[in-house]
């Protein structure tokens, strides 16, 4: 099977072939996009002996190199990988599904006016209401977690289209707080 993997701003293709009970052949390509062109550059071919311990810990031998890797699916297709103190977050999806998803949702669904929270926390202050005029840098919402308060500010001048939270709400990482147009 071929999988598309996204890590940070880079995209990869990973071909996985199961060769035996614990054996996998893997080929990793980086997908380099240049305007409308896209090129697959082979990074590495690996022959892996993979043993899974419990839900999420893998002992891997790659040509006698030994690795202990923790791989957990935190959200659908979103993987967190830990490896000797290193930490990676990856989105991995079957190539076909990824194409389908992109057809349905568009290539990248970044809505510029959405102010999202980068932390899980409790809303302690909301400074704006729908329809308010705001200036770039103006405080919109304060979130609190673990005794730290964080101010979320307007990313640009505009009008508040939606305020999705109220004081006392608990929000998770990635949730939209305010939309500005």
């Amino acid at each position, binding site marked *: 099977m071929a*999988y598309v993997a996204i890590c940070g701003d880079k995209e990869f293709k990973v071909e996985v072939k199961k060769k035996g009970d614990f054996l996998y052949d893997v080929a990793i390509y980086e997908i380099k996009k240049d305007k409308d062109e896209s090129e697959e550059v082979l990074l590495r071919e690996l022959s892996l002996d993979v043993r899974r311990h419990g839900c999420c810990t893998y002992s891997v031998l790659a040509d006698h190199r030994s690795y202990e*890797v923790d791989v957990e699916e935190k959200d659908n297709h979103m993987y967190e990988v830990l490896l000797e103190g290193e930490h990676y977050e990856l989105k991995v999806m079957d190539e076909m599904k990824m194409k389908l998803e992109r057809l349905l949702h568009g290539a990248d669904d970044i809505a510029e006016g959405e102010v999202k929270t980068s932390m899980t926390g409790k809303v302690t202050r909301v400074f704006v209401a729908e329809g308010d005029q705001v200036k770039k840098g103006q405080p919109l919402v304060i979130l609190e977690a673990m005794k730290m308060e964080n101010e979320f500010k307007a990313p640009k001048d505009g009008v508040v289209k939606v305020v999705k939270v109220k004081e006392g709400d608990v929000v998770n990482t990635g949730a939209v707080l305010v939309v500005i147009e």
Partner: protein
Amino acid sequence: MFEKVLVANRSEIAVRIIRACKEMGIKTVAVFSDVDRDALHVRMADEAYHIGPPPARESYLRIDKIIDVAKRSGAEAIHPGYGFLAENAEFAQACEDAGIVFIGPPKESIVAMGSKTVARQTAMKADVPVIPGTLEPLSDEEIFQKAEEIGFPIMLKAVAGGGGKGMRLVKSREELESAVRLARSEAKGAFGDDSLYIEKYIENPRHVEMQILVDRYGNGIYLGERECSIQRRHQKVIEETPSVIMDEELRRRMGEAALRVAKAAGYYSAGTVEFLVDKDRNFYFLEVNTRLQVEHPVTEMVTGIDIVKEMIKIAAGEKLSYTQDDVKMEGASMEFRIYAEDPFNNFMPAPGKITGFRVPGGPGIRVDAGVYEGAVVPMEYDPIVAKLIVWGKDRKEVIERSKRALREFVVRGIKTTIPFHLVVLDDERFVSGDFDTTFVESVLDKLGRGSQEGLELALALAAIAEDQKEYASERVCKEGGMDPWKFFGRKMLMRTCWW
């Protein structure tokens, strides 16, 4: 000695105190809020009492409830740990009123040292130098005015503060208004008191503190220094002993200065006197922490003295069993605070469920954890989930061992500061000892996302995990059978056969 002690705290420090009590044959009583029924300190204590809703001010800060539990459980003494009620004189008074021993200093010392202004006056009287700045709590207007007088950069500090809460570096006039608002709000939330004062910001200082133990009979010893210059947002992240800038002579002078301050304040119990040390190794009194410190273990590692046990013995009226001559510092030690914070995202709080937890072992390793595999880290409290403390025969061995241990340390499910510590340990300046309290900011841009080899392996394994899931899912759809993978990965239960 006490037969039963109530531990008025949670997480790793509550566990630390419970362990000390168990070794002394003392029964322990834990308290817990709604979100802490499953916390480790509850599991480890001999008894446990519920004291209210998650917000600290409705549970762990509720003096009345804690005194009530002490009475109901028959606890003769209360250890407050750090934070919460540890430096609350009103609490010490309430204990006294209830006939319960407060395991800490006398309330008069808490009051005196708790007000940094009084502490500074005490230090000056004890002939110990202090940093230029104002001493009194100030109104907003006074802050704006004084800041102009002293000149930027200045530090805003909470009068009741500690641990970086309500503390803000202000580099220019433009930042001041917003900084004051946030600092007051944090101070209010953390200590119930929004009083602020300001002082001159000394650039590139080193933060060095002296651990002391003083009994009720005036016998005092210093247990050497801790260097706490590796800070982020004025929150310590790595502490070590000995400090690379220290020698026997300076240690003796600072240790004796610390004991002078303690004596002037009528202090007993364990305590810490903080100093800033400038490039010329002049030291300035900063404040006294009238409590057990988060970083006390590094001192325990090099002196072999169990500070928590000594603190309990002093509270029980025992005489100090060590003289200054008995205190020997052997080797070196560092402490790494494992915070539930995301180092790749500006150290945002990262509460949540710990799905994997494997601690390092072997020589020179101590782990003081407040969590376990399966524990949920609530968002209501401090982000500290564990401390890794490492001992080695010298600083070089400590650094090598720490890298090894941090790579063994797996905390899955929440983000932690482990990758950050590894970046610090790889930095030339840290290894050579050439750093100050601004070090962390200068190293943050080195926080990469690992190696090419690691990335490739991560890609391969994530794809294999996805492949195993897909394969299992296919089988379910074909055979209509059970999907063993369904139990792994929270959201998979929602998956349909179409997808």
